[in-house]
């Protein structure tokens, strides 16, 4: 699982680098900064979608659980 921690570290370093590079000037610096910051936002969108899916699955599971219990009794 070292890979996952490396990904976390890379995301953090890219974000910090992006925030600082945007301070250095306009034009190309800004574009590089956007490219460095964007992965975090893309991952946020992916994670949110997965969490929504997880919540829907959990709701279905929690709703089916009492029905099963009632049948068993």
């Amino acid at each position, binding site marked *: 699982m070292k890979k996952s921690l490396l990904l976390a570290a890379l995301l953090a370093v890219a974000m910090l680098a992006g925030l600082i590079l945007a301070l250095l000037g306009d034009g190309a610096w800004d574009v590089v900064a956007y490219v460095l910051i964007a992965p975090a936002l893309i991952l946020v969108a992916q994670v*949110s979608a997965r969490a929504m899916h*997880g*919540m829907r699955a959990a709701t279905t599971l*929690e709703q089916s659980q009492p029905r099963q219990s009632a049948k068993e009794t």
Partner: protein
Amino acid sequence: MRFWIWAHKWSSLICTAFLLVLCVTGLPLIFRGEIDHALGYGAGGQAEARPAPLAAIEAAARISRPLGKIHFLVWEPDKPGVITLSIAPPGAKSFFDNENVLIDAATASPPSGGDRASPTQWLIDLHGTLLLGPMGPLVLGVPAVLFIVALVSGIVIYGPFARKAGFAQVRVGRTKRTAWLDLHNMLGAVIMAWMLVVGATGLINTWGASIIQFWQMSELSTYAQRGSPPTGKTASIDAIVAAGRARFPDYQPYFVAYPGSLMAGDRFHAVYLRGPDGLKEHIFQPVLVDSVTARVIGAPRPPWYISALALSQPLHFGDYGGAPLKVMWTLLDLVTIAVLISGLKLTFSKGGRRPRNISPEVPA
């Protein structure tokens, strides 16, 4: 680990209410310039027109606030063609009582949108002081410190979990509470670096007035004796600014601090200039000009803590990298609000009914 969980829970709980206010008020402040322009505040300035003498602008501001004392004259980057004057009303106890007056730089009259500060100024006061005046920044310093404690403790708690389960994983087929927990952890972990930067720069900004006071007492005050006694007639503001600009011809004026204000001395004006590009554009360069003779008495290089304060402003508000960066800042702010709300939900919801044959949640 129990200590870190305890530290994360309580530091987050105490600062969450403040952070929600700061995140919500911070959202429109990212687009402050655009909002002011859309509302017509400071929109009437003519950026390309030949500027009127600064003395005429001063005079126009004095007509608007005859009893006030001018403390700052500012060229705001997001209000081209308009000059903002920060004026201390009679009986003002601190900088926080100052009122802003806008004057058209070309015509030396109030701009078409009116000479008063826009409603976003109220948002800035709420965001920066919670409308508590000089006490506000001190009060806000506490949640800022707690926010950083919450972030650091969050990293310590989440690290071992991510090592086992993987980074940014959402466990499917568990309880709803687990999904909320994963959402909270993942969002927080992904934007951790941004939250640390905004939290730390927010903390520095809350100390801004104290940092400047320290600089004034420790360094600027050493120039006090070099100026002429404040008994003579004050030189024209145009001559003072021209003297300052002549010292750094490539630089643009940012603001002028008048004697009696936080960032000047009793005997000298301080003309603050901004560099042409890069970091120099954000870190201002002061030029101290004798108020009577308009002679430059010094151009001290700002110390590191003043430079840090100057860089904290753009890094906190995200208004330094064009429209795309502002949009990214908005999204990151919204994600922070989601982290705060999911944290509240996890704290105040009961453990949740766990379906059978499902292992307990990993605490995080």
